[in-house]
């Protein structure tokens, strides 16, 4: 059994690990997490098989250890918590060794010397980093490209950094012109654009970074893997992988051929990370707090705008549906049905990626607000309709019999009753809209979830995600309680 999670002394993590491991078929199986799509390191070939430099390497390592390999597809920013929690034994994805990451996870000896690169649209006149002044830069959330770009923003006067979950969505936005350049690991980029002449790598950015695999701290498997990698370097296997995937010989003194020591954490303390140290790390919390707060404000802003537009749209659609001409009423119903059946994530991607091809530029925020408002409007329309229809026709008749005007009928009798009926489901809808804002992180929106993801990748620790979860709960729990109270109160009032 290779999982380090078994060694965790903390009871909670131990039980968690047992639950996870209970599903394993064989003791000699290594679970490997990889950000699949990260060419040429780990990706799927035409047959759907996982291939790549690091896939070949980790399979060879496992073979030498008489173990089989199970590949799990996990986004880059989620790899660190996945090894820490014991969900996977090893993570690969051209992960750069950094001091901060060494505080949270264990690395084996690196096997590739890398650098960053700036990629732009071939049509653009940007020739180097200096051309990126006041331009928008794309990076991968929490990657070394992200870290380098963030640290050098003032030096190069970047206008904005947008964070993506991988090379494909980022390059789509370079192509559509939403972002001006993409800063990312050079080997992946050169491989990705080898058959795409409309992209150009215009600058190599020397960072002295080296790639390696990560494991949980204290996992004895790390030393075994490290030894096997030494052996594979000596035998020339790693160099052969370089030739296979890059078509060239590795440099003679590079980490691809030289056996080197395992990088170890310089910080004091035990090698074994406890549950609290991992999931509720106070230092990580303090470091990531500003980032999380900025994410929270974007989430609130996006939620508030989508709720407001959804309400207006919903009321309008409900009135058209109930009192409009037949054709308009049918159109309203079609709108309601379509937007209640489409998954928000799908709509979000369509709204974000489709308009640029028609020459319409929507910012990530606008695209997310449009998608969320459209869906919220459909739900809100049905809520308003139900609310107005819930007021018995006898109430309208009593008003007419008393001679009340239409305005007074609505303001004094119908709306006060209708609003009581719709407030609980409307509040529920608000809760859903705010939760759905988290989906906007797929279109590079710096919302709470996105920032938490970035923070957990930067810190190589899942605490920011836990804090984000607490923030979501703190935000939504009062609303949930309010819904139950209102529902109870109105139910009592209407039981005549």
């Amino acid at each position, binding site marked *: 059994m290779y999982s380090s999670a078994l060694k965790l002394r903390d009871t909670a993590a131990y039980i968690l690990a047992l639950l996870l491991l209970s599903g394993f078929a064989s003791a000699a199986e290594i679970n490997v997490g990889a950000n699949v799509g990260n060419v040429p390191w780990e990706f799927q070939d035409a047959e759907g098989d996982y291939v790549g430099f690091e896939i070949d390497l980790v399979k060879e390592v496992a073979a030498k250890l008489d173990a089989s390999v199970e590949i799990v597809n996990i986004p880059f920013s989620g790899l660190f918590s996945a090894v820490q929690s014991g969900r996977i034994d090893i993570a690969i994805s051209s992960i750069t060794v950094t001091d901060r990451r060494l505080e949270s996870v264990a690395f084996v000896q690196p096997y590739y010397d890398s650098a960053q690169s700036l990629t732009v649209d071939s049509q653009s006149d940007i020739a180097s980093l200096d051309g990126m002044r006041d331009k928008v830069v794309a990076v991968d959330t929490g990657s070394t490209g992200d870290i380098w770009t963030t640290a050098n923003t003032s030096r190069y006067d970047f206008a904005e950094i947008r964070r993506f979950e991988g090379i494909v969505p980022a390059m789509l936005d370079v192509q559509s012109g939403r972002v001006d350049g993409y800063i990312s690991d050079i080997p992946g980029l050169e491989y990705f654009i080898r058959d795409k002449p409309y992209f150009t790598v215009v600058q190599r950015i020397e960072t002295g970074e080296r790639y390696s695999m990560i494991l949980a701290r204290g996992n004895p498997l790390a030393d075994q893997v490290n030894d096997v990698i030494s052996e594979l370097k000596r035998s020339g296997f790693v160099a052969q992988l370089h030739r296979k995937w890059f078509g060239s010989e590795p440099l003679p003194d590079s980490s691809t051929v030289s056996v080197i020591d395992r990088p170890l954490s310089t910080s004091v303390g035990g090698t074994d990370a406890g549950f609290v140290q991992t999931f509720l790390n106070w230092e990580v919390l303090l470091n990531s707090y500003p980032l999380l707060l900025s994410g929270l404000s974007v989430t609130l802003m996006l939620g508030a705008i989508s709720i407001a537009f959804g309400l207006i749209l919903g009321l309008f659609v409900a009135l058209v549906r109930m009192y409009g001409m037949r054709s308009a009423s049918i159109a309203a119903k079609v709108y309601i049905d379509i937007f209640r059946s489409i998954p928000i994530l799908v709509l979000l991607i369509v709204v974000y990626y489709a308009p640029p091809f028609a020459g319409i530029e929507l910012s990530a925020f606008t695209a997310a607000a449009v998608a969320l408002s459209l869906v919220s409007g459909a739900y809100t329309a049905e809520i308003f309709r139900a609310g107005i229809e819930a007021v*018995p026709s*006898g*109430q309208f*008749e*009593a008003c*007419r*019999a*008393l*001679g*009340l*005007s239409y305005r*007074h009928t609505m303001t*004094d*009798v119908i709306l*006060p*009753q209708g609003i*009581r009926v719709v407030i609980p489901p409307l509040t529920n809808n608000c809760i859903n809209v705010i939760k759905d804002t988290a989906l906007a992180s797929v279109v590079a929106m710096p919302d709470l979830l996105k920032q938490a993801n970035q923070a957990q990748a930067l810190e190589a620790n899942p605490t920011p995600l836990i804090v984000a979860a607490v923030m979501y709960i703190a935000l939504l729990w009062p609303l949930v309680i309010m819904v139950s109270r209102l529902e109870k109160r109105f139910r009592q*009032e*209407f*039981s*005549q």
Partner: protein
Amino acid sequence: MTAIVSIKNLHKHFGSFEALAGIDLNIKKGEVVCIVGPSGSGKSTLIRCINQLEAFDDSSKVKISGVDVRQDETARAEVGMVFQSFNLFPHITIRQNIVLAPMRVQQLSEQKANAIADELMRRVGIESQADKFPRQLSGGQQQRVAIARALAMGPQVMLFDEPTSALDPEMVGEVLDVMRDLAVSGVTMMVVTHEMGFARQVADRVIFMDAGKIVEAGAPDKIFDNPEHQRTRDFVNAVLQY
């Protein structure tokens, strides 16, 4: 004596179904008229046409104190209506239910409207319920509130659409007592009802309707004891048997 309500050649269709097939009727000031007849005979439709809750055919005419209800919307405010299902406003108190229309429609001050409400609540015996909500009252109490609410507008005629049909049997009496008091005090009333005892006691005139037409009308004794038409006889025999 001039007619408070004057109905001429009243026809009403629901699609191809003729609910009212030519009604002619005049109600005098202070008169109490009970309308009886089998279900679906058009009784309720008739009084709902009087205050325009139902539209009716163009050739027909309904006048309140000489004013055509279709030409002058304000004529409707001269007609008070009490519904089978009360239709009180559930979100406001008893007092607010009663003062709402006088304040909004007649622009009375809150003070004046409250004075009227106090007087009417005493009259129907619910003065102690003023600040409660409708759901806190029994059905009989709610229907008395509904009567007070309609009276608060000072209507020239009060319409009652089966006012005791939705009540538990033990509450029917308290509502009929209030209606009898109104009748005695000279309020002009049209009452659609199945309470034959009430009709016999209180009505000046009983109208028997069937299939959208007035079959027979006259003093209660004549209709109940000595009806002219076979259909009236059948109906009276059927309802008085038990």
